[in-house]
């Protein structure tokens, strides 16, 4: 009996040991992270690139972050201000944040509301070129109430006032360090941009731009038992395949970011047995955008692809619907993304409150319906299988996208399906840095849209789609007068849509917002202006010996790095 108790005791001690061992800062030793895009700078206000935002989130923290379910959790703030707890004023014109008590920067000085107010001043400086300026839109002033409290005053009612100081894109920076770095002097502060002083679990020891960052545990981190890791190496560069290999096959690295690889390639790597993948779905949707205006090269540059010239074929909704009905989204997902994708019928696929359920009939490919629609629209099958209308115009369209293996596979498949219903698609692919670069002189940018349809992925930051859905309002289309800048890529214009969006901007209740956003989504999708294809998740890989990873697509993937630990 005694022996049994002793055994139980030993077993219990063994079971408790990992916990006991972890109760001390730095006890897990060293952590290796690899991002195949290397960080260039540790200041998310000067670069909006994901690699830079996520790497700086290890050091810099916001008032609140989104968790893995898209809910706000306080980080530097004591609690999340809402209308109910009085943190957001009843007229939705201001929000009051209170810092936790006793917060210290990694250099040992206290974090005060002056730092918070300075952060706003830094990003709102007109000459600073702040990448996160949109988060500070409509901010009138940031008032320091006391040493731990700030109030953000807006010039218009803000139903969702969580722009400034929320999420990895808008962390708090130290006033003392960045004081002389505002406006045009921002780029001169190399030291501050490479070695920011933060409140996060780690602090920067060595930063080599576009290569590697060394971190060590922040001695002044607010939880004395965290982080579990003492040191951290953040390696950047290379390609997704070898990053995945380094985690899952050779075990050199503990965590790899964003493995955009073919499903079978990932499966082979997993057989290496040293790591596993984690995936999560956010708001990224691969879609085909339909051009509502005429991109014909015969038009003069002032009217080509502008609302002055409506599209000769796509002005008929039946043709647009046929394009969508002919696509087998399930097959595309399986070939292109595997477990990291889901067939999409909405452009707002997530969070659940905003996701419409009215469009599920797009899931099944319906060639007969597509053919019937084209017949109805007066397009009859010609001698070579391509449809012709009464004026003798052939149903030939240009289909462009960025250069990317998966996108070219999609193009080939979709071209085949469209051919089966009598539409000829001419394929084009453009280098991503040209396609997504906003050079007004280039004819190949996605904004200029010198094609009939184009394919790419887009998403929205955070959990609220108001700004994202606002892109399809009249007047926001890229055009020559706006140097081809603008978010309304389709050149869609519907006054009813604009009115509904205005209503969204004035509604605070989350369920009502959900209902309006779903309606907006349905207008776009049921008009077949945007043809959603795949809801794309993010796939990361971590070593089997790394515990505590909770993949978060609503904020930085490294949001809870303080809790990461070594498991045996």
């Amino acid at each position, binding site marked *: 009996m005694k022996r049994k108790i002793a055994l139980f005791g030993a077993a219990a001690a063994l079971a408790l040991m990992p916990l006991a061992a972890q109760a001390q800062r730095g006890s897990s030793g060293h952590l290796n992270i690899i991002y195949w895009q290397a960080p260039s700078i540790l200041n998310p206000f000067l670069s909006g690139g*994901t690699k830079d935002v996520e790497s700086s989130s290890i050091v810099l923290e916001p008032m609140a972050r989104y968790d893995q379910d898209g809910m706000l959790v306080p980080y530097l703030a004591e609690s999340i201000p809402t209308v109910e707890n009085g943190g957001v004023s009843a007229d939705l014109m201001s929000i009051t944040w209170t810092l936790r008590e006793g917060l210290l920067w990694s250099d040992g000085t206290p974090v005060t509301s002056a730092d918070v107010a300075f952060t706003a001043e830094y990003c709102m400086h007109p000459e600073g070129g702040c990448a996160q300026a949109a988060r500070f839109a409509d901010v009138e002033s940031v008032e320091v109430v006391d040493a731990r409290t700030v109030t953000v005053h807006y010039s218009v009612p803000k139903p969702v006032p969580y722009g400034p100081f929320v999420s990895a894109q808008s962390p708090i920076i130290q006033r003392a360090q960045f004081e002389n770095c505002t406006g045009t002097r921002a780029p001169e502060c190399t030291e501050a941009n*490479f070695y920011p002083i933060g409140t996060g679990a780690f602090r920067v020891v060595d930063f080599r731009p*576009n290569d590697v960052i060394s971190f060590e545990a922040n001695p002044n981190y607010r939880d004395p038992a965290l982080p579990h890791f003492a040191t951290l190496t953040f390696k950047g560069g290379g390609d997704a395949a070898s990053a995945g290999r380094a985690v899952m096959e050779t075990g050199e*690295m503990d965590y790899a970011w964003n493995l955009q690889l073919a499903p079978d390639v990932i499966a082979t790597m997993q057989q290496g047995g040293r790591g596993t993948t984690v995936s999560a779905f956010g708001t990224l949707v691969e879609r085909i955008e339909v051009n509502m205006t005429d991109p014909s090269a015969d038009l003069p540059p002032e009217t080509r692809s502008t609302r002055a010239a409506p599209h000769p074929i796509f002005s008929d909704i039946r043709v647009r619907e046929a394009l969508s009905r002919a696509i087998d989204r399930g097959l595309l997902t399986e070939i292109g993304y595997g477990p990291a994708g889901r067939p999409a019928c909405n452009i707002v696929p997530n969070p659940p409150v905003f996701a419409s359920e009215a469009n599920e009939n797009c899931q099944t490919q319906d060639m007969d319906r597509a053919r019937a629609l084209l017949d109805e629209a007066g397009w009859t099958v010609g001698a070579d299988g391509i449809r012709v209308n009464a004026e003798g115009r052939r149903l030939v369209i240009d289909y462009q996208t960025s250069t990317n293996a998966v996108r070219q596979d999609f193009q080939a498949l979709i071209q085949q399906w469209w051919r089966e219903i009598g539409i000829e698609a001419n394929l084009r692919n453009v280098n*991503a840095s040209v396609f997504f670069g906003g050079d007004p002189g280039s004819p190949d940018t996605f*904004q200029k849209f010198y094609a009939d349809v184009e394919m790419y992925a887009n998403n929205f930051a955070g959990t609220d789609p108001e700004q994202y859905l606002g892109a399809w309002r009249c007047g926001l289309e890229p055009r020559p007068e706006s140097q081809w800048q603008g978010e309304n890529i389709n050149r869609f214009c519907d006054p009813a849509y604009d009115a509904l969006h205005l209503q969204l901007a004035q509604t605070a209740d989350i369920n009502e917002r959900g209902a309006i956003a779903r309606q907006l989504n349905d207008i776009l999708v049921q008009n077949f202006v945007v043809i959603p294809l795949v809801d794309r998740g993010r796939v990361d890989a971590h070593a089997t010996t790394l515990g505590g990873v909770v993949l978060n697509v609503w904020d930085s993937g490294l949001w809870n790095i303080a809790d990461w630990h070594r498991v045996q």
Partner: protein
Amino acid sequence: MFTFTMRRLLLAIPTLLFIALVIFLLLELSPGDPMADMPLTIPPEVRQQMRLALGLGEAWYVRFYSWLYLFSVVEPSHVMANMTGLEWLRVEGPRIISFQTRSPVADIVAQRLPQTLWVVGLSYIFGILLAVPIGIYSAYRQYSWFDQAGTFVSMVGFSLPTFFTGPLLMLIFSIWLGWFPIIYDTTLVVDSFYDFGLQLRQMAMPVFVLTLYNAAQITRFMRASMLDNMTQDYVRTARAKGMTEKVVVLVHVLRNSLIPVVTVIALGIPTVFTGAIITEQVFRVNGLGALLITAIYASDIPMVLTLSVVFAILIVLFNLIADILYAVLDPRIRYD
């Protein structure tokens, strides 16, 4: 010789100015945008503000002139100050700032140079050390099995691209055998034999890939040059005078055969600095080649322009050195 060198050096100035202008205009005309890899969630007007903050709002000739001033006056002063430790040499004020990192281009180049010199430089030296004896013996025993094997290996080294041999070696030596790491650790500080071992292991594969390529090239030159000389009259004379084969080959033939090879080697030295773009990318060696390619992808115009012009200077310089070496080694050649 002196007037020749001076004339060439003076001629180099307009050449380099022209090269700089051409590169700048090419970058200016090429499509691409430093904001291209920002997420689409950043609205267009914010992007425009960011472009203006990078100085892209100025006219092209203003930007070219200010770059030229910074490149020829400010940056050399900082390099001089860093090398000599004399702080008064520094010209204060703005420097050439990279779009990606918002930090001075020269600092990043200084940080990247050692890796490139170690990996690419070492493979160049190994390449020469291997190629010269192989080339000599292949020529001396022309069409022997050794010559055939050497020809085969150098053809393989010449024709297989490094983006094929690199991943192949990784697959064999890292994934199957587990001997070498696939990620180059640039933070490694060598202060013990253990760390030295680690450094050797991580350098092994990139150095091997590049050595194969360099050796393949130089072997062919060496062999061809030896063959040209082997049939010359002076070789027959030497043999007729009763000299040993060793003396004939290694003293008479080799010295004459080395003249073109040395110039080829000198002309190749700038490639040591330009780095091996693909190999560095494959093995994640953060050298100048990797720096250049990421800068091109990111449309980081100041970085691409500065690096390209530095490379142009090196190429012009080593061309001159090769010409001078040629005259020094071969008394028949006179420039004056």
